[in-house]
């Protein structure tokens, strides 16, 4: 573990090995010196966990007042016997202040979920390389890999003061997860080798996940941003009901089991809901229900579906600093609703937000830097670990147009498309030269990386070879404008690039790619679509190529969604294959491509493998995926997605660099609860 | 003869458009006497209506009175006032109490948004200083006077609720509301049917008899002139080509244009199914005012080069009329001048 951590720490330098160079912009130097010059990429760092428990505890002044008034128990009895102790990055902070931030609507729940991420059972250290305790004080994986035991903190409390115990796990497993009305289908995380697992209470502070087959992956799943490990904030909001525990004492009142269906339905209708399930979905959602007991550092006081999403400190938060001060330092979080991204960025530049990385647009970096002193903020660039912020996800099950489907299903065709992309041009235009061009494989510092040679495999501009390959496939005829024509009817072969304007201006990326493909005689037809429509069409298998990120795939097993067709939630590589895999072959169609089949088999076998072997398997999968170009990577390992961080100069303990990765719950693993206002 | 109430000399009104100047009224003279009617007659576009508006000082922009005098003898005596020299503010005092206007389109001449009572009493309140009630009472009296039945009820009607004839009566009532001494009636009967026309003319005549009104009757209809006017002024392209008493004009028209106009009146004596004589051609466009006598292109009695070359001067004929035509004088002088110019 420690070696890997060292690797990650040095990743800034490593990521710079592949330098974006455009010949006329030769002086635009290598990315390495770019980062050095800008001074914007700091050290990957954050608060560290210590095991020494402080002898006494302190609390925020206003909580002290409440204690004095007898409205709140003293701090020592609010904390668990063994609280999580964090050594803040720079210094012990001071209490107070309001963290001003922007969010863009009720769909932007992740904005808050991520700062609540310490409600996960296990988590990652700030560098994202090591699994560390979180809500559970420790875990134990049996030698056969079939059971994972979690040890909880004795005396830990929900935000309303009720005890948090193993019963809350059992309640989740039996009453929520086990109820088909609430969770219609079991989740893959809770099964091993195709057999469902169990959650069992050992004692008040010990729970065990038991599987019939070896599941060495499970602790990682618990630590990752997975359905089982995501934590209450993210996995029990938005109509989901996963993540392993729930406030039994509060939620029981909404379940038919504890009264009757008629009774809960009556109550639901009184409260203005159609039925009890809809009421439950709202009542167990921390974004919507200020009364819901939670474990995170803050709790909602004004729900997300109002113009201001506001949170106050959780007086029962289980984390303290090394001097025994209960965290968080900051009193309140106030997120203001912004109707558009330009307004968010402009307000951030005016210094109206104290720390904002979400919805900050990389393209505006020059303007953001220009206004640093006016807005009194520092700018940090946090580089991600995923291979490609822009990935062409190829539908290999396309059936609506047989000819197109045939070509998309042909490896050499996909390789030629990839060879026809001038990634340096895109890097310069859309990433300001800050990204690493290449394939979809994760950063070389990641344990699952297949190695540096796979960054460039089929992923460097080579028009001559691309043309040779396309000619070799029989696509030799061209129309008057020089585009290759279909073999079935002599019409121009049109490959649709479906792109959504979301985290980046992907339609513009697609346009540039389409222009570059002119040189290989491929007509790329850019279809800019609204996100819902694009995804819906992708999940129906209507698209040719979907332009999206592959963020999250830096740890393949924890977030395979944008790498392999393993979940029906993403149909972009062919919904039939995904259905086939997710149903263990019961539904859908078995992929005809032997390489795809092999990749999926490898993936399925990995859960039963120990870490080292599992990483090897992942490398193997990546090699197949890159070699076969199931998805074409453009540029990645950049700050484009949540990596441009504006931090007020009044804030203390702000890390130089934050881990940008799905499993780090950016900025969750940096523990925002340790940040404070210096004055 | 008594002194005229209104005496217009060499009145010139011009319109300054982007394409040039239109001389709508180009040197008109006339006198109006108490209790008498001056008929101004001519084809449409000859400048009759502009003359009327010029007298009231309400020529629309871009038109402007550029010359001449409009002498009004005040009711209380004293020296005559030249209306052409007054400012708009000063002029306002004369509109209504001294000179009033009756318009050719009784429908369009009223605002449809106010009751007739409102519109009549407005001038009364302004010029006679009466209050609302008194003004309304006077309005009812006026309506009664012009023969509107049930005036107390009608006073609250809107113009569109009245018939054409009634509207014109109301129009006249409105014009008379401040006891003017001069009434300008601009085609007062054109829009009415024959019976109503006769009624309105009767009304005007009887009002004139009662009050000694001086009326300027502007029309294109020689029949109306014959019936109403004491004096006549025939206008062509902004000028009076012939003026005199109604009998003389009708009995012995001297200007070819007057003769042509008179011929175009249908008579009961005419044979059925014969074409009515018309004046050849149409009025030239104001910009293309012909050189010389403006009427010469249409004139059946053109003498020769002189008509096209020089403008005929006004000639006073022995029977007390004024004619602008070389047939009646001024030819020699003009020819001499033309020859001189050539040499």
């Amino acid at each position, binding site marked *: 573990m420690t070696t890997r951590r060292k690797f990650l720490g040095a990743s800034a330098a490593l990521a710079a090995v592949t330098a974006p160079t455009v010949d006329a912009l030769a002086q635009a130097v290598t990315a390495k010196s770019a980062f050095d010059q800008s001074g914007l990429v700091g050290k990957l760092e954050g608060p560290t966990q210590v095991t020494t428990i402080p002898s006494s505890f302190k609390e925020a002044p206003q909580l002290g007042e409440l204690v004095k008034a007898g409205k709140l128990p003293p701090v020592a009895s609010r904390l668990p016997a063994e609280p999580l102790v964090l050594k803040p990055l720079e210094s012990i902070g001071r209490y107070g202040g309001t963290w001003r931030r922007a969010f863009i609507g009720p769909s932007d729940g992740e904005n808050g979920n991520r700062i609540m991420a310490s409600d996960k059972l296990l988590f990652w250290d700030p560098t994202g390389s090591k699994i560390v305790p979180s809500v559970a004080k420790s875990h134990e994986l049996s030698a056969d890999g079939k059971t994972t035991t979690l040890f909880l903190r004795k005396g830990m409390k929900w935000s309303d003061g009720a005890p948090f115990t193993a019963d809350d796990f059992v309640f989740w497993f039996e009453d929520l997860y086990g109820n088909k009305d609430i969770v219609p289908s079991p989740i893959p995380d809770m099964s091993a080798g195709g057999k469902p697992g169990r959650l069992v209470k050992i004692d008040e502070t010990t729970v065990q996940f038991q599987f019939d087959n070896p599941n060495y992956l499970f602790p990682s799943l618990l630590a990752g941003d997975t359905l089982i490990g995501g934590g209450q904030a993210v996995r029990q909001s938005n109509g989901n009901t996963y993540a392993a525990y729930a406030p039994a004492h509060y939620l029981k009142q909404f379940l038919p089991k504890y009264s009757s269906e008629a009774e809960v339905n009556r109550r639901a209708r009184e409260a203005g809901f159609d039925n009890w399930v809809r009421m439950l979905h709202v009542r167990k959602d921390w974004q919507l229900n200020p009364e819901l007991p939670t474990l995170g550092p803050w709790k909602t006081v004004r729900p997300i579906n109002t113009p201001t999403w506001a949170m106050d400190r959780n007086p029962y938060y289980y984390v303290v600093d090394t001097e025994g001060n209960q965290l968080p330092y900051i009193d309140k979080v106030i997120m203001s609703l912004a109707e558009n991204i330009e307004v968010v960025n402009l307000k951030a530049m005016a210094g109206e937000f104290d720390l904002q990385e979400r919805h900050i647009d990389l393209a505006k970096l020059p303007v953001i830097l220009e206004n640093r002193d006016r807005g009194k903020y520092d700018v940090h660039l946090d580089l991600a670990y995923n291979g490609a912020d822009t990935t062409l996800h190829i539908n290999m099950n396309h059936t609506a147009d047989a000819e197109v489907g045939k070509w998309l299903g042909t490896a050499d065709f996909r390789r030629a498309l990839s060879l026809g992309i001038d990634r340096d041009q895109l890097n310069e*235009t859309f990433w300001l030269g800050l990204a690493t061009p290449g394939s979809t494989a994760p950063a070389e510092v990641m344990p699952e990386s297949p190695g540096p040679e796979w960054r460039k495999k089929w992923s460097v501009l080579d028009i001559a070879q691309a043309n040779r390959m396309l000619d070799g496939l029989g696509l030799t005829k061209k129309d008057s404008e020089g585009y290759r024509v279909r073999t079935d009817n002599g019409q121009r072969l049109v490959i649709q690039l479906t792109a959504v304007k979301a985290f980046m201006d992907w339609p513009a990326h697609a346009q540039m790619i389409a222009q570059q493909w002119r040189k290989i005689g491929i007509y790329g037809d850019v279809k800019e679509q609204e996100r819902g429509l694009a995804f819906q069409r992708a999940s129906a298998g209507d698209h040719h190529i979907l332009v999206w990120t592959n963020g999250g795939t830096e740890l393949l097993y924890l977030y395979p969604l944008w790498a392999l067709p393993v979940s029906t939630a993403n149909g972009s590589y062919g919904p039939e294959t995904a259905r086939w895999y997710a149903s263990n072959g019961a539904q859908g169609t078995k992929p005809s491509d032997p390489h795809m089949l092999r990749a999926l088999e490898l993936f399925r076998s990995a859960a039963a493998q120990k870490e080292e072997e599992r990483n090897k398997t992942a490398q193997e999968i990546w090699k197949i995926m890159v070699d076969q170009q199931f998805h074409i990577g453009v540029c990645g390992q950049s700050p484009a997605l949540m990596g441009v961080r504006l931090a007020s100069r009044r804030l203390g303990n702000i890390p130089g660099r934050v881990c940008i990765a799905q499993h780090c719950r950016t900025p969750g693993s940096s523990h925002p609860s340790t940040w404070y206002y210096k004055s | 003869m008594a002194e005229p109430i209104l005496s217009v000399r060499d009145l010139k009104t011009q319109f300054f458009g982007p394409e040039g100047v239109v001389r709508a009224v180009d040197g008109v003279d006339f006198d109006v006497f108490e209790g008498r009617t001056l008929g101004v007659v001519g084809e449409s576009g000859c400048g009759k209506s502009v003359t009327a508006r010029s007298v009231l000082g309400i020529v629309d922009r871009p038109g402007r009175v550029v010359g001449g005098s409009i002498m009004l003898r005040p009711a209380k005596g004293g020296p005559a006032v030249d209306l052409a020299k007054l400012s708009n503010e000063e002029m306002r005092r004369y509109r209504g109490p001294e000179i009033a206007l009756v318009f050719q389109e009784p429908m369009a001449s009223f605002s449809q948004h106010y009751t007739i009572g409102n519109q009549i009493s407005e001038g009364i309140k302004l010029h006679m200083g009466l209050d609302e009630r008194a003004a309304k009472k006077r309005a009812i009296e006026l309506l009664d006077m012009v023969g509107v039945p049930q005036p107390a009820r009608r006073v609250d009607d809107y113009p569109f609720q009245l018939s054409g004839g009634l509207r014109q009566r109301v129009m006249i009532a409105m014009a008379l509301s401040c006891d003017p001494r001069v009434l300008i009636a601009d085609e007062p009967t054109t829009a009415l049917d024959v019976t109503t026309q006769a009624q309105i003319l009767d009304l005007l005549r009887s009002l004139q008899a009662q009050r000694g009104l001086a009326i300027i009757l502007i029309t294109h209809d020689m029949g109306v002139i014959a019936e109403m006017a004491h004096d006549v002024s025939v206008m062509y392209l902004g000028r009076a080509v012939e003026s005199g008493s109604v009998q003389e004009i009708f009995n012995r028209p001297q200007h070819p244009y007057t003769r042509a106009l008179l011929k175009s009146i249908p008579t009961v004596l005419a044979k059925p199914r014969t074409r009515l004589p018309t004046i050849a051609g149409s009025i030239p466009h104001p910009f293309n005012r012909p050189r010389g006598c403006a009427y010469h292109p249409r004139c059946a009695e053109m003498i020769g080069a002189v008509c096209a070359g020089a403008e005929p001067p006004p000639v006073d004929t022995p029977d007390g009329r004024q004619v602008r035509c070389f047939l009646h004088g001024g030819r020699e002088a003009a020819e001499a001048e033309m020859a001189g110019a050539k040499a």
Partner: protein
Amino acid sequence: MAQIDSEKYAVATQLQLTWWRFRRHRLAMVSMVLVLLFYLLAVFADFLATTDPHATDARTSYIAPQPIHLFDDDGSFRPHVSGIKGVRDMRTFKLVYTVDPSRKVYIDFFGRGYSYNLFGLFETDRHLMTLKNPERGDGIFIMGTDLLGRDLWSRLMVATRVSLTIGLVGVTISLFLGVLLGGVSAVYGGLVDTVIQRIIEVVRSMPTIPLWLGLAAALPNDWSVLQIYFAITIIISLLAWTDLARVVRGKFLALKEEDFVMAAELAGASQGRIIFRHMLPSFASHIIAAVSLALPAMIISETSLSFLGLGLRPPAISWGILLQDAQNIQTLALAPWLLLSAIPVVVVILAFNFLGDGLRDAADPYG
């Protein structure tokens, strides 16, 4: 024969009168010339473009407008541009371009560039201006370039064609609908009139945005840019016909009472003949005026639709798309010249409005 001639004469004088009055409207005349010029520009858009409006190049990203130098050092008339070179400043992350006056790139008139279809008929690659000796990254950037390094001038030319024709096609459709429904409504009256009036009221009561959104989102995925373009035009005109219908209906109703229509009816002319020979010509000038006022509304609609991310989407080029490209902070701060694309929009809309006003005044001098 004689009758037709006199009819023609009557119509001609009506239009002639309108034309005569219109000519006095100096602003409207200037506007008409402008509008015609813009349409001329639209016809020759590709010819006037200097580089392929779609061609992207990171080397030419965000270049400010560059002048064309007319004279060479020796004073001879040899139009040229200077070579420029860009470097990204890795402290500010801005692209900094330096002009190299020593490297002259000469302009070739009527030279060869990208190929295109003139009038949609014959293919050519001749352009008004191209470069004689360009290196990669050279270009005539008189209005600067956008993020993707595309020449704004060339894009603006093509956009002008698209946006101006959208207006024309849209107006034609709504004119057809407006005259037809307005006319039918007025001529038949009764139930037909009530129904049509109700439809008009409903359409007018609907907020436009959801209508656009719904209709635009319903367009099929695999439609080409051209198909989408026509669909958008139809969508815009589906909402725009109501005003025209009202005007037409009003005029019809007013004219029905007019003597000459009555006369024609009494003379036994057929209804169609009355409408097309007598009524329509008499308010043709009104329709022309209404149309010229409806056109700018269409153009604005197109820009709004594009702004909302509906309607035409890149890679299509239209004024709305160019404006949407400029709709962000980095453009305002780093590449404000992209806002130049608003100028033709404003000018054309102004010109159409003045033209329409002039026509209306001329057609209807006394109300």
